[in-house]
């Protein structure tokens, strides 16, 4: 068990190092750099050269990378060229915003998707499973890009909730927290709806597989009520395949939140990365990518370990 966790830990570390290094090198290799972009096309070559020198962009790629790594191991990730602030200060706030959005969406999707999946997977007749299934297929066809456009459209028409941003300029009555919740409705729902549909389908499939197993039939035959068998015994077995995808879900959350952050102007990591990529702000790009990789690594690690506890076979 310890060997397994250590191996997964090594992979997580490799993931973070590889992703941040690759994004730094890729951005360095890209045509144009921060100096030429910021000064514009009509800047004199000497001025660009001076700016490059000031930012240390005139050194060779190897030199820049070595320098960055030497600082990064001491948790100094360089200074953002675009914002002129240390990357270490810029990222936590944005990362927290993305985490708030993603975790809210994940919670909603779980609370909505799993119970509906149990219902639609355990019943064979009646209209309820059909309605749930149809709703899921429709929502599965609406990735976060489309749900966010649709929800912003609805919110703009009705004026029920704010359509963009994370906070109002002036703190309204009800306090800052209620204001945040209102702003959270559209982006969180945009990510949560397709995810809930995915959870519902997976849970329904797992439930259908679980409910025909001999132990379920045997429990029913002993006179235990159907509701109790479904929600206690069969569910325990059916949760396993769903738990297995939880680690993978973080990738979906990050990708999904990118589109949503751009459309609803949520000040998260995705938007920051987009701005940094556009400005060729190498250190900020590496920082954002590294942070995303940390999220990913933590999630896969947690789900791997959880799965190893549930299912001893994966430890091999």
């Amino acid at each position, binding site marked *: 068990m310890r060997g397994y966790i250590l191996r997964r830990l090594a992979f997580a570390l490799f993931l973070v190092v590889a992703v941040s290094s690759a994004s730094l090198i890729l951005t360095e290799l*890209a045509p144009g750099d921060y100096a030429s972009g910021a000064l514009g096309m009509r800047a004199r070559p000497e001025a660009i050269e001076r700016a490059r020198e000031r930012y240390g962009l005139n050194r060779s790629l190897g030199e820049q990378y070595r320098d960055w790594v030497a600082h990064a191991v001491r948790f100094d990730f360089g200074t953002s060229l675009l914002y002129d602030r240390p990357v270490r200060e810029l990222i936590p706030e944005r990362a927290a915003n993305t985490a708030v959005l993603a975790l809210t969406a994940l919670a909603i999707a779980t609370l909505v998707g799993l119970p509906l999946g149990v219902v639609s997977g355990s019943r064979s007749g009646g209209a309820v499973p059909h309605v749930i299934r149809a709703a899921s297929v429709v929502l599965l066809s609406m990735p976060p890009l489309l749900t966010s456009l649709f929800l912003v459209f609805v919110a703009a028409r009705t004026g029920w909730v704010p359509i963009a941003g994370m906070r109002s300029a002036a703190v309204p009555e009800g306090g800052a927290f209620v204001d945040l919740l209102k702003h959270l409705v559209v982006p969180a729902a945009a990510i949560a709806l397709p995810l809930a549909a995915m959870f519902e389908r997976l849970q329904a499939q797992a439930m259908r597989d679980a409910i025909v197993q001999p132990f379920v039939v045997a429990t029913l035959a002993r006179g235990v009520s159907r509701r109790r068998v479904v929600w206690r015994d069969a569910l325990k077995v059916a949760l396993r395949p769903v738990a297995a995808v939880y680690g993978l879900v973080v990738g979906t959350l*990050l990708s999904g939140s990118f589109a949503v952050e751009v459309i609803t102007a949520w000040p998260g990591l995705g938007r920051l*990365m*987009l701005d940094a990529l556009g400005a060729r702000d190498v250190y900020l790009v590496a920082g954002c990518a590294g942070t995303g990789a940390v999220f990913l690594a933590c999630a896969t690690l947690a789900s791997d370990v959880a799965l190893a506890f549930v299912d001893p076979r994966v430890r091999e």
Partner: protein
Amino acid sequence: MIRRVGIALVALWAAAAMAAPVLAPHAVDAQFVDLQNAPPSRLTMAGARIAIHPWRLVNRLEQQYAVDDAIAVPLRWFSGGHLVGSSDEARAPLLLLGTDAYRRDVFTRLVFGARTSLALAAVSALGAMVLGAAAGGVAGYAGGGVDDVLMRTADFVMVLPAMYVALALRAAMPLVLAPATVFALLASIFAIVGAPFVARGVRAIVRSERRMDYAVAAEALGAGAGRLLLRHLLPAARGYIAVQLTLLVPAFIVAEATLSYVGLGFPDPVASWGTMLHDASANVRVFADFPWLLSPAAAMFLVVLGLNLALEGSPGGLRYDTPR
């Protein structure tokens, strides 16, 4: 039944994309004077013929239009190489889905955009298929170290959020590129990101099929590695590959739209569903006042829904391991 509906939906869009020059009443970059963000044409009957009322600009600043009830311009069918058009283009152009901020017909751009978006998704999916089948086939056939290296790489790519990989790779290229270059670039990026999803399953199938009697027999008869793979083993993975393709195409359609939306996709005058949404997003009033500009989102939904319905009930239709 429901699968047929899905297949029909996808086929309809594919046909619309192919027939775009005939289906569209206008040229893709035709602009209409004094019709910025104009609503869809109002249809009416003039005698026995379907006709349209022209739009009259009421307020240029607010971009408000009023129906000119006094004039009814009849439609003209099958003329000038178009399915349908207005009989008086200058006075009342046929605008099935209104116009955009650059005074171009949205319906025309929607069907021409279908060409770009669907072709890119299809080409990328084919690329991912070839790449994935090759890598998976070789890994499953060779085994050992080759298998380890190929599959570890595939696992690594699959863990990463696909959207960010595509974003970083696209951003590493010059921001301004010719449309054809962008097409090739995006197709290669999507193919690379999508290939591991094909490769993993193909590897497993090839590995297990290799030990079957027919494969052993073919080998005993002197079939080389290439022949064995192409003629005997990969055909066994046909069903799996078909399902994967159906899952990859929607992901690629949305990926193109997302990249174009943030300005890293196709350049400006090119019509694609992503660039149309990008143009629409420039104006905050789009959601409240010009909803027809969001029609590419509806089109995307219909295609993805069609593909999802086509997979309903097929084994492996619901999988979590699709690119995200």
